[in-house]
């Protein structure tokens, strides 16, 4: 079912000057921060708890609970994660370019609620235009008084620094993000401690929230946590941005009420994905970023609900859905995903660093007709060395969850398309049409 929920994070997107302070103020901007400042910090946090806002970065951890875990200390930090790099995820990129003031306002609300006086917004380096707009918005916010020594005359002091990344997928992992923000290689930290809320930036307690998560805060504060929680289904409350790409007529982002709309709606409805490009049949789709196990046509009627997708053996993850049609070679798709993991492995842990290379090489020779039948067992064995048992959710042998994410697509192909793997071996090549630019 397609509902028409309020546009919580995308209300300004589409306006030609959506990123300016003038337009932001004319459309209710910074009213949420004003409202928050009139409340006690604990009451702001209580509204976010009532909203049951789940983190929008990929792990789906409740934002309110994350805040409540912040260890009491003289110095605490807030870091907003805008290092969006999960393949086929482009929602934060859109928010950063189109509504940077909403991110600044959300950051200020989160900082006020958690008693933080220094916040950082870590923006992926490749988003040059986004960085320009964020820095501009930050300058304007200081001049307007929404950030600085006396936030909107409340006596609360907050500094925000826009920090550029420099191209490394792993920096989206929150402890790697903090290392990077400390001026180091983006190496995920050894756990425990599990949460930056205990030991974070410079060893101090730190809240790390995703861009879309903080972008939801102005609306939640203005309309109340109950209004947010009234949207959605079960623990999946509110709206969420879904990024749809691959072989669909209308690739793009869509702000959708959680738990109501199904994958079928998202992919086929004329107001959303508009169906498979060229009217081809669906072969498979990736429901939540390339770390998630794939689904087939039989899962199309699942709702976009974190719990339901989890029970079905995958995850909503970063909210990115990649569609593969009947012309898509699943072996080639899985090879390209393995190649991504191999290129982006930070190199700290042997199973991930070496395993990703093995898996990429084996998948490459299978796809190109140079594989042997025993390669299929070999690639699964390499996967098993990274994540023993090849279960979902995966077992972990590495410092972070990057490694255990590698097997998902390989195991999906082996389970869903074993015949396609064999055909590559038997025919000594890929039986599918080469992917090509769509013209006309």
């Amino acid at each position, binding site marked *: 079912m397609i509902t028409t929920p309020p546009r919580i994070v995308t209300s300004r997107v589409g306006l030609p000057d959506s990123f300016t302070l003038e337009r932001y103020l004319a459309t209710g901007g910074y009213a949420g921060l004003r409202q928050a400042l009139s409340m006690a910090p604990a009451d702001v946090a209580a509204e976010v708890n009532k909203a049951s806002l789940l983190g929008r970065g990929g792990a789906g951890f409740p934002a309110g609970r994350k805040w409540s875990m912040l260890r009491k200390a003289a110095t605490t930090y807030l870091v907003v994660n805008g290092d969006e790099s999960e393949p*086929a995820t482009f929602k934060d990129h859109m928010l950063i370019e189109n509504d940077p003031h909403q991110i600044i306002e959300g950051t200020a609300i989160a900082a006020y609620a958690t008693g933080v006086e220094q916040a950082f917004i870590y923006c992926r*380096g*490749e988003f040059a235009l986004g960085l*320009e707009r964020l820095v501009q918005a930050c300058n304007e916010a200081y001049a307007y008084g929404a950030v600085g020594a006396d936030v909107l005359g409340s006596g609360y002091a907050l500094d925000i620094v826009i*920090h550029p990344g420099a191209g490394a997928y792993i920096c989206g992992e929150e402890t790697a993000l903090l290392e990077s923000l400390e001026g180091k290689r983006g190496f995920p930290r050894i756990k425990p401690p599990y949460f930056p809320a205990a030991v974070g930036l410079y060893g101090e307690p730190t809240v790390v929230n995703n861009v879309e998560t903080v972008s939801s805060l102005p609306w939640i504060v203005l309309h109340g946590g109950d209004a947010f929680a009234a949207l959605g289904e079960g623990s999946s409350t509110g709206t969420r941005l879904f990024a749809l*790409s*691959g072989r669909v007529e209308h690739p793009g982002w869509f702000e959708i009420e959680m738990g109501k709309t199904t994958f079928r709606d998202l992919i086929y409805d004329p107001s959303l994905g508009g169906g498979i490009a060229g009217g081809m049949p669906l072969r498979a789709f990736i429901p939540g970023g390339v770390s998630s196990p794939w689904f087939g046509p039989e899962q199309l009627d699942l709702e976009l609900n974190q719990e339901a997708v989890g029970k079905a053996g995958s995850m909503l993850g970063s909210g990115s859905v990649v569609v593969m049609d009947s012309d898509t070679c699943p072996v080639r798709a899985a090879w390209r995903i393995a190649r991504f993991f191999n290129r982006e492995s930070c190199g700290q842990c042997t199973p991930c660093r070496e395993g990703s290379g093995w898996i990429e090489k084996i998948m490459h020779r299978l796809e190109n007709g140079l594989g042997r039948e025993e390669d299929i067992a070999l690639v699964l064995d390499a996967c098993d060395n990274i994540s023993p048992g090849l279960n979902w959710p995966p077992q972990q042998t590495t410092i972070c969850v990057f490694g255990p994410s590698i097997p998902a697509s390989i195991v999906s192909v082996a389970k869903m398309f074993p015949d396609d793997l064999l055909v590559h071996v038997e025919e000594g090549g890929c039986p599918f049409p080469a992917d090509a*630019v769509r013209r006309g």
Partner: protein
Amino acid sequence: MARLSPATRARAEAIVACYPKRRSALIPLCHLAQAQDGFLTEEAMEDIAGLLGCTPAEVRGTASFYDMLHTEPVGRHVVTVCTNIACMLAGAYEVLDHAEALFGISVGQTTADGEFTLEEAECLAGCDHAPCVQVNSRFFGPVDPDGLDALAEDLRAGHLRETVPAHGILSRVERNVGLPAREARSRGGAGRQPRPSEAPGTVAR
């Protein structure tokens, strides 16, 4: 080759002052040095180390981890073709093959005239415009082979100088505020005097 100019150095000092610890400014300072020279020169990395209170090896060791930071010269236009799953399904490898033929170079190489460097990227978060291409971190897409021809021609002719600055220039908007909140509180953040161990220029060479 290129030390940090006085203007770049002043800008670097202002950036360092935004952070509670100097070392945090490493990536922003590397971007700043790239904006000056197009890539990170040995001398710039030495200057950055001096500003941050770390060794040049630490600057290089960190910079080499990140795809956007170049420790070797690159062309005026770094053309980055995304070939990750969403772009691949939209024909990105056809675009990449075409780029290699068009420029007469392989991925990772620079044309003899110093005009173009070609790179293959992981997902650039432009999947709604697949296949997507970046030139000096500015987005184009969807790009087909004909579109790439036209883009290269425009870049060569200098028609896109407004939208595509020279390589290394990341944000043309600079932070124009200090840290009034922290200065007002003077509780020992970025506004404070650096400790001797963090002071610039104390690193043994």
